[in-house]
C-alpha cells in the first residue's frame, strides 16, 4: 500500500470510530494538543487510560465478587473510569459507566454485574480500535509520511 493509500485508510478508519460513537469530540481535543514538542501525546495519554482502566476493572471485578458488595467501594471506581473515559473521548465506555453508576445508586448487584460486563465490552472494543489506529499512524510515520488531520464533515 502506498503512502497516500495508507493516509486515506487512516482517515477513513478514524472517521468510522466517530460514526460508530466509539470516540467523541474530546478525542479531537487531544489530537489538537499534540505538537512537535510532544508528538506522542495522544498515545501517551491513551496508554495511561489503558493502564488506569485495567486496574479499575480488576478492582471492580473483585469488589462485585464479594459475598456482600460494598457499594461505597464500587461507585468511586466507576466514577473514576467514567471520568477518564470521558477525558479521552471514549464515549461508549463513558455512557456504560453512567448506566453502571445508576445501578450502583440503587444497590442492584445483579444489574451491576451486567453493567460491568458491558463496560468491559466497550472498553476492550475502544482499546482494540485505538491500538489499530496507532499502528496505522506508526506505519505512515515509518514510511516517511505525515499523519493527516481528521476532517469529520459532520
Amino acid at each position: 500500500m502506498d503512502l497516500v493509500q495508507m493516509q486515506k485508510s487512516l482517515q477513513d478508519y478514524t472517521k468510522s470510530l466517530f460514526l460508530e460513537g466509539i470516540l467523541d469530540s474530546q478525542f479531537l481535543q487531544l489530537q489538537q494538543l499534540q505538537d512537535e514538542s510532544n508528538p506522542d501525546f495522544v498515545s501517551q495519554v491513551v496508554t495511561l487510560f489503558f493502564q488506569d482502566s485495567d486496574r479499575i476493572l480488576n478492582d471492580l471485578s473483585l469488589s462485585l465478587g464479594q459475598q456482600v458488595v460494598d457499594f461505597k467501594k464500587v461507585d468511586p471506581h466507576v466514577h473514576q473510569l467514567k471520568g477518564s473515559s470521558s477525558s479521552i473521548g471514549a464515549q461508549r465506555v463513558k455512557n456504560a459507566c453512567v448506566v453502571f453508576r445508576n445501578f450502583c445508586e440503587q444497590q442492584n448487584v445483579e444489574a451491576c454485574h451486567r453493567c460491568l460486563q458491558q463496560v468491559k465490552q466497550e472498553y476492550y472494543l475502544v482499546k482494540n480500535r485505538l491500538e489499530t489506529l496507532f499502528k496505522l499512524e506508526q506505519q505512515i510515520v515509518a514510511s516517511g509520511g505525515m499523519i493527516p488531520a481528521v476532517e469529520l464533515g459532520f
Partner: protein
Amino acid sequence: MTREELPNLAESKLTALVVDDNFVNQSIHQKLLARLGIQNDVVCNGKEAVDAHCSGRNYDLILMDMDMPIMNGIQATKRLREMGIESKIAGVTTRANEGEKKEFMEAGLNDFQEKPLTISKLLSILHKLDFYVQT
C-alpha cells in the same frame, strides 16, 4: 480555534496548580495549561495542595477536582481559603448536578467547569478570572 489562534500567555508568567487524583486528567490538564504558556505543577489530592501552599508555594490559578481521596476538592478549597490563600480556584469536575455544584462553589471557588476540560473551557476560566482578555 486552530493551533495558530491560541493565545500564548507565557509573557504574563501565570502559574497554575492541577489538583486531581486521576493520571489521565492530570496529563491532559497540564498539557492544556502548557499549550497556553502557563507554567504548572500537579498534585494528587486536596491535602497535597494544602501542603504545597504550607511549604510556601503559591499559584495564580488552581484547577481543583472534586472527588479525591484523603482530602476532596471541597475540603481543600475551604482549607485554602481559611489559610488566606487568594489564588483563583476553578472547580473542574464531572459532578454537575446543581446541589453538588452549589456546595463546591460555596467552599470558595471563583469558577466552575464541567469535565472533560477543553481549550475553550480553560480559556473561559481564564477570561472569567481576568487572566486573559479575548480579542
